């Protein structure tokens, strides 16, 4: 055994929880933050964890493999995936038009994009149901060409696009605004067609933002309740979404079943969040920004 006798010239800087600062008030604001966070968020979410851990993995699996629950989960995640894709495509188009082109009323259109953020979900829900119902403005037209929108999975899709759109627009928009014009000029000077410039120069750096917007819209769509239930028709096995099933289980006092579905949904939204963080970490390495 060799004991190092070398004198330690420089003591390792002592680990501190907090870097020193002349500003006061850290203790009280930090403590208050932790207190509120624990009471409002951590303890209630902990209750869900406790409740579902009592069920165990096998218990959760049992609930998830119930045909009605499985089909509700499938509808929630499947339709939300499609809706997030649609919202991403149109969201990109809207963001592009809003940042790149000048046209009268552009600012109003820009403000309108936030409507789904501001409009309460129940209001959006009954309004969408009204518009897309067989006797509604759009619903009647769709009916003529043989498409039923309201009270079918298509209705769920429409509501999910509605609430997902602002996420898709607002994550891409600032990055489109920041694109360096000179890069595009260089590309054009070097003889690239406009289409080639768009595909090879402009679009690639925007991909991470598009993916982030997609993930946010997806996560929101999966959990959405208010704007969907009015337009969905809520037919078991056809147009019943997972959050509604939680509400139904609760009204039957089946707390364990409700907790199990909630745990599955939380698990998947946690994975989505993780995916967003990975995309952003990758983007930071690849492009130097989020």
């Amino acid at each position, binding site marked *: 055994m060799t004991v190092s006798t070398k004198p330690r010239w420089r003591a390792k800087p002592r680990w501190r929880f907090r870097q020193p600062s002349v500003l006061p008030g850290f203790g009280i604001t930090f403590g208050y933050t932790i207190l509120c966070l624990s009471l409002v968020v951590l303890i209630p979410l902990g209750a*869900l964890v406790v409740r579902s851990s009592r069920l165990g993995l096998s218990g959760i699996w049992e609930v998830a493999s119930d045909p009605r629950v499985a089909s509700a989960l499938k509808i929630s995640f499947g339709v939300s995936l499609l809706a997030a894709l649609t919202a991403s495509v149109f969201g990109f188009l809207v963001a592009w038009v809003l940042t790149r082109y000048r046209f009268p009323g552009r600012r109003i259109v820009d403000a309108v994009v936030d409507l789904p953020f501001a409009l309460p979900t129940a209001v959006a829900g009954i309004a969408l149901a*009204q518009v897309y119902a067989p006797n509604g403005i759009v619903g009647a037209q769709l009916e003529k060409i043989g498409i039923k929108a309201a009270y079918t999975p298509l209705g769920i899709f429409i509501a999910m696009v509605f609430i997902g759109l602002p996420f898709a627009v607002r994550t891409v928009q600032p990055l489109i605004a920041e694109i360096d014009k000179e890069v595009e000029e260089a590309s054009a000077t070097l003889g690239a067609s406009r289409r080639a410039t768009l595909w090879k120069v402009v679009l690639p750096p925007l991909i991470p933002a598009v993916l982030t917007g997609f993930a946010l819209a997806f996560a929101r769509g999966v959990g959405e309740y208010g704007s969907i239930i009015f337009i969905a028709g809520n037919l078991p096995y056809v147009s019943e979404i997972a959050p509604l099933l939680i509400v139904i289980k609760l009204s039957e006092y089946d707390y364990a079943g409700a907790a199990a579905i909630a745990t599955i949904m939380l698990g998947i939204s946690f994975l989505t969040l993780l995916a967003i963080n990975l995309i952003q970490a990758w983007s930071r390495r690849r492009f130097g920004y989020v």
Partner: protein
Amino acid sequence: MSETAAATFAAAPAKPDTPRSAVTEGRAVRWTLTAIAIVFLALFLVLPLATVFVQALSKGFETYIATFREPDALSAVRLTLIVAAIAVPFNLVFGIAASWAIAKFEFAGKSLLVTLIDLPFSVSPVVSGLIYVLVFSAQGVFGAFFVQHGIQILFALPGIVLATIFVTFPFVARELIPLMQEQGTAEEEAALTLGASGLWAFLTVTLPNIRWGLLYSVLLCNARAMGEFGAVSVVSGHIRGLTNTIPLHVEILYNEYNFVAAFAVASLLAGLALVTLLIKSILEWRYAGELAAGGRH
């Protein structure tokens, strides 16, 4: 926000004889894309909003007004105002405290703390309600205690307030943390050096710096607090005239096929949303520099 940057990219002046700019699309493409975007937004976002008001007034103004003379409608409005009056100030105080601790100091585990504060945004509204049911129901974690002492939390005001606080929890902190981080600590340190007390420095230096961001976030927080449906629906118990907020009252009227009344009550919330959007847009145009850049909602 993107004003100056976007202006640089403004499409080439649309004179027919100007050669096409190399850094924008052709005129026909520009017009087509703009038209698609506007038609899409009109169809998906504006049409439902317009429908609310059209339906609300479809049986005339008298019927519209009569909806609000209903005692159940009035009690729903009253409950919503009470809930917002408790939840918004709570989150305001929390948001200021959290952003002071997080933005003005360096400490270990900061990003974990920020993630935890953001958590309610990624939880489904129904799950937000469910967790409080699990905590406070009779066989819940703390439920037995409250039941023994005769304190009603679920299906009563406290439960509704708690669920509302949960879903609006990150709003103020999320806006203020990046804003205060951008502003740094130099101005507060100067104030302290000049002999100000900590509280005085906060009131006279920090608060004026964050006032527009504060207003912005309170506005959004309030809109969500008054309009929250899923979480409140789970904890409220839907007792008519007692635990129904405005959105829940809309649901009841709609499910009773009383469409005109449902849209009339909904028009209150739609009006609130429009006012919120208007003030939000004005703040973004005029005080863009004094709001957190690129804040996510």
